[in-house]
């Protein structure tokens, strides 16, 4: 699904990622953990194609194609979805309008044709219900005045609607209380399938109690310094990142 080789990335002339190798198979969930400033968010933005993140060396292949040649919206159409740590508030655009615009943009790009209003509404209701996203929320401006939990649920709803094949969840647990974490994690778990891979970026192990990963990687100083199975996350919870930070320096 995703093949990253020797990836070097600079932001504002500063090298943040210093040679990442990562291979994710179809249906696999990989967790990326690491201290602040280790490059976790940079990795997520590079995958999504954000401006200002320059790949200076290495390659990213997504479903066998060079991802770096595609712009942001082409990557979205190809099946990459980034759930943001801090979803952006967009005043004046209702969540429903935004979802319809996004779903149809992606469908058109995938050659599936737009959904009419009735079919779209049916689809939204079906996906929104388990995430506890109410009609009232859908009528509000996108993310405006949403609580932390509502924002993350709205992100997962977008993910469910856009039907991506690689989900990148950037610190999805930040700002969530235990109950909200459960709802969001359940939503993510429902989207797990043999065709869909996930990268779960998190600082803390607790999210991984809910979304159980196949592999765990420790990112520090712009490199993956250790990989293991889910036990690695538990180990980190005990020992902290101090050892790895020292390794990277």
């Amino acid at each position, binding site marked *: 699904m995703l093949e990253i080789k020797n990836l070097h990335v600079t932001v504002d002339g500063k090298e943040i990622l210093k040679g990442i190798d990562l291979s994710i198979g179809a249906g696999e969930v990989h967790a990326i953990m690491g201290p602040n400033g280790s490059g976790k968010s940079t990795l997520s933005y590079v995958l999504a194609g954000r401006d200002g993140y320059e790949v200076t060396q290495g390659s990213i292949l997504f479903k066998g194609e060079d991802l770096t040649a595609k*712009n942001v919206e082409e990557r979205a159409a190809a099946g990459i979805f980034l759930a943001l740590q801090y979803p952006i508030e967009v005043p004046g655009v209702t969540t429903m309008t935004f979802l319809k615009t996004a779903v149809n943009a992606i469908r058109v790009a995938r050659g599936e044709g737009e959904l009419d209003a009735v079919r779209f509404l049916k689809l939204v209701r079906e996906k929104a219900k388990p995430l506890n996203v109410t009609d009232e929320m859908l009528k509000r401006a996108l993310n405006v005045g949403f609580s932390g939990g509502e924002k993350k649920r709205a992100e997962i709803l977008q993910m469910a609607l856009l039907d991506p094949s690689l989900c990148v969840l950037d610190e999805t647990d930040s700002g969530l209380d235990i109950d909200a974490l459960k709802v969001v994690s359940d939503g993510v778990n429902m989207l797990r399938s043999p065709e869909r891979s996930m990268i779960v970026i998190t600082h803390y192990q607790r999210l991984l109690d809910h979304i159980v990963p196949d592999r765990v990687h420790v990112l520090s100083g712009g490199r993956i310094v250790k990989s293991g199975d889910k036990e690695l996350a538990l180990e980190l919870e005990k020992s902290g990142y101090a050892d790895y930070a020292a390794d990277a320096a």
Partner: protein
Amino acid sequence: MTMAARNMKTGIAERRLIEEAGAPGFAHAGWFDKARLAALDSFEAAGLPHRRLEDWRYTDLRQILEKRLARVEENSGRSDAPAGLLDAVDAYVALIGADGVEGDFSALPEGAEIMRLGDVLDEGWVRDAMDASVFGNTDAPQAAAIIDLNTALLGGGVAIHIAHGVVLEKPIHLAFSGNGTRHLRSVIVLEEGASACIIESHQAGANAFSDLVSDIRLTRNASLTRIRIQNDDRSAIHLASDRIVLGEGAVLDGFLMTLGAAVSRNQSFVRFTGEGARATVNGVYALRGSQHGDHFCLTDHAVPGCESVTLYKGVLDEAATGIFQGRVLVRPDAQKTDGRQANHALLLSREATMNAKPELEIYADDVQCAHGSTVGELDRDAVFYLRSRGLDEASARQLLISAFLDEVFEAVTHEGVRDILRVIASEWFIQERGRHHE
């Protein structure tokens, strides 16, 4: 004597004509001929406003107009059909040209009248409405002085009278178009408890110079919704001043959209003369190329207990210049005033310019007033966010620009017109999209 004044004298060269017979093509009444000459005198004394006057700091009319006034231009204006989109609004349509007012007003309800201004100049209500003495101690004499030009050279206009208690269900649509130079006046009077919605569309042709003044009187508990869409040719000059007086409990719901003209200056002078009145003076401007759009708003709280809201939002692309000069004046007696004023602009290009000067001038102590001004660019994070959900860059920008402006559209009370404004805005952005794809 200033050069402008000399040009006025030799250039218009029609002073004698005015003295003898009034301005060409316009009926005259004794009182008005006197007012016209007085206006000409004071305009000649002041000359055209220029950059060194604070109220005209960003719009040098002397430079812009001198050339135009140096010759007498034929009134060549002819009103065409109103802009296509507004045709969809069921309204009483009046075509306002240099030489008259056309339309079928037979369906107007009893007590609502639309007339040629020249035909009713001697009516008391017209004379009262055109009497500027209520604004005599206005706090913006520099800005108001340009109205003398209109009075001196007035060539026509429309008079609308809505009688006591008459509620007009359908809007009146005043469609301004035509070419050349036009000095026009609208007199709009709503008597006690009357209610109306007046839409103005402006579609002047290439190189036109529109000099427009509206004298509006809202008597006790009268209610006026006024929506203007200025879409003159982008080579035109558009100068518009509104003098609006609100009596006790009167409500003004005003909205202006500035899209057209090479140079436009809109001046709004709102004055409360009765308690418990409420005025909304909102606007949207969307300018590109080298367009220059100046919005000057003075709200004068002369009596207690009135509420005013001024909210402008603009988008400026390419090398366009936007100007907002707002002033809320709260006089010593005007306790319990609620005055709010804000201007927010989005610059879509590094070459665009915004000048904003919001001011509060408060002499009463028990008031609630606020003002604000922001100038920014499109939020890059938001553009990225929308693109990461599959929208292409132009669509993402369009959505964000429309969303930015929507707060002002949302406040427009006429639903049909509100939808049209949104369409007009998105068409403007589709043009922008074309540019970005070039």
